[in-house]
């Protein structure tokens, strides 16, 4: 065994789009210990809740992270609605979930492109981002924004999707599905991809449970935890929802789970579009949350369970808004997965966890 050396990894690293710093304690080529460090992009967004009223804060909530923007605005709106006892129309719930699932498709495609790029599969990166562009075009047509949609508000949504637009969404998704299935099959059966991912960064089901891991990271370790299966909002009307799980718990399993989740999201959107109820898309929300009232909420983001907490103080500004993001929950799992791996596999393991540092630090 050689001498232990500390190798700094990040915050600027080609594989990471966001600043995460790791101190890797390395012996020979093996990582023996990992110390994660965040805090480079802390913006204090939670504190801004004191200076913006609860209707305005939704635009800050969705700027926490570009990829999870829709999810954060929905999670925040649901929490405030629970705080104030507001029930939103069914159609608004459906529309929210459709946009949310579309953003899951775009988030997973983005991640898949980055992952392919990280192990040198650059044409795959191009293909994934080409398909993602079509989802962004759908956003542009239905909401007017490409990344930050600003379409959810406390008490409902601000725009409706009419029948012709809905048909267009379905048609585009069918087109994406055809191309995507080819890409996915290539990725999952390719020998060089398997060489890089199979058996790397293994996490057992017991570890996943003990570390309370969330999202595709946990589901790849055969932990069938998915907030969508609680049937909140429009998810309750799905005929059947089964979380996608894999048993291997390695990088390959994580790639596989995310790949299949894209197809699952497309199916969810199609089912909801077919069941779409008619009616209003918003209710008027009046007054302010009561002093001391509190509410919590969980939502399945593309990266996993996200926790929201709000406390009122009798004024239009909330007393406290808290968002605990999936990556913060998965950091402990990441350190465990990295222990004992090869130095060359570190970037692959980190990418398959899909960390979102901006979310984590807010």
């Amino acid at each position, binding site marked *: 065994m050689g001498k232990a050396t500390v190798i700094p990894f990040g915050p600027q690293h080609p594989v990471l789009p966001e600043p995460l710093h790791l101190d890797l304690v390395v012996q020979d080529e093996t990582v023996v210990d990992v110390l994660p460090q965040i*805090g480079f992009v802390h913006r204090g967004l939670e504190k801004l809740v004191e200076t913006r009223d609860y209707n305005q804060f939704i635009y800050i909530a969705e700027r926490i992270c570009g990829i999870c923007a829709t999810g954060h605005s929905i999670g925040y709106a649901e929490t405030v609605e629970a705080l104030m006892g507001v029930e939103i129309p069914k159609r608004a719930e459906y529309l929210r979930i459709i946009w949310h699932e579309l953003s899951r498709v775009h988030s997973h495609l983005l991640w898949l492109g980055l992952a392919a790029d990280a192990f040198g599969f650059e044409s795959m990166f191009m293909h994934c981002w080409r398909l993602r562009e079509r989802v962004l075009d759908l956003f542009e047509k239905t909401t007017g924004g490409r990344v930050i949609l600003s379409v959810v508000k406390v008490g409902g949504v601000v725009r409706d999707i009419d029948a012709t637009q809905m048909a267009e969404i379905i048609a585009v998704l069918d087109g994406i599905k055809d191309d995507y299935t080819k890409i996915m099959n290539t990725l999952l059966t390719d020998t060089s991809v398997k060489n890089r991912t199979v058996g790397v960064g293994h996490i057992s089901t017991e570890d996943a449970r003990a570390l309370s891991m969330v999202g595709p990271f946990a589901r790849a370790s055969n932990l069938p935890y998915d907030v969508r299966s609680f049937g909140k909002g429009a998810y309750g009307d799905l005929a059947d929802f089964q979380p996608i799980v894999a048993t291997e718990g390695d990088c390959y399993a994580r790639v596989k789970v995310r790949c299949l989740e894209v197809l699952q999201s497309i199916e969810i959107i199609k089912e909801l579009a077919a069941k779409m109820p008619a009616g209003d898309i918003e209710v008027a929300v009046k007054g302010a949350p009561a002093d001391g009232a509190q509410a919590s909420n969980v939502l399945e983001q593309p990266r996993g369970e996200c926790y929201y907490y709000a406390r009122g103080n009798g004024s239009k500004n909330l007393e406290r808004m808290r968002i605990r993001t999936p990556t913060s929950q998965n*950091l402990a799992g990441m350190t465990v997965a990295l222990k004992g791996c090869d130095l060359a596999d570190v970037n692959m393991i980190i990418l398959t966890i899909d960390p979102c540092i901006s979310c984590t630090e807010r």
Partner: protein
Amino acid sequence: MDRFSQVFNEVPLAEVHDLAARRAEEGWRYVQILAVNTEEGIDLVYSYMKDGLLENDTVKAVGADDAVPSITDLFLEAFVCENEIHDLYGVAIENIAIDFGGMFYQLAEKAPMTVVSPEQLAAREKAKKIAAAKAAKEAAAKGEQAAPAAPAAVAGPTEEEIQAKIAGLDPEKAAKVRAAMEAKAKKAAAAAEAAAVPAAPSAALTEEEIQAKIAGLDPEKAAKVRAALEAKAKKAAAAAGKGE
């Protein structure tokens, strides 16, 4: 399919670790820890989840020198939240498994940032004082009701009333409101002097005046102001009636 539900409990600080141990044994998932700055101290909320039931255990009013036991020996993943609460709120958490000692967030300011800023604290204290003063005044006013025609009511808003109204607003708006109210006070005083005999003008505020006043405010505040002004107008009318 388990449905989502949530519960809020209160736990004493001493039981935090025991509760975590019990939850770990019963197979609960750790969800998060958060801190809320309150006037009494810092509230810590520990969340756990099992089969769709989200339990939020609140520890009320943790003081600056209370030592909070870490739960990272049971739930390693809590190190993120615990370091964050230590760095940003200054809560002393003992024995964190991965302890960054205040260096988890690379912040420009070393001192923990409390959620209640000095300005807010001042504003809250002022609001409280004003509320107390108002209550006292109301009590006094009730006692005085039998006495003849309170001249203050006819003279329009007094200094305290202006103060009370300004309390909740931000400085620049406050300045505007203050100017407007003082102008009104003068006007009302003048009206009272000029036309003491016909009761109607001395009734302080007419509908138009209320409208003019409300125009610049947002709906909720407008409703409040309207109610206050109408009450005042009534009072003034009553006073004028008594004066005759």
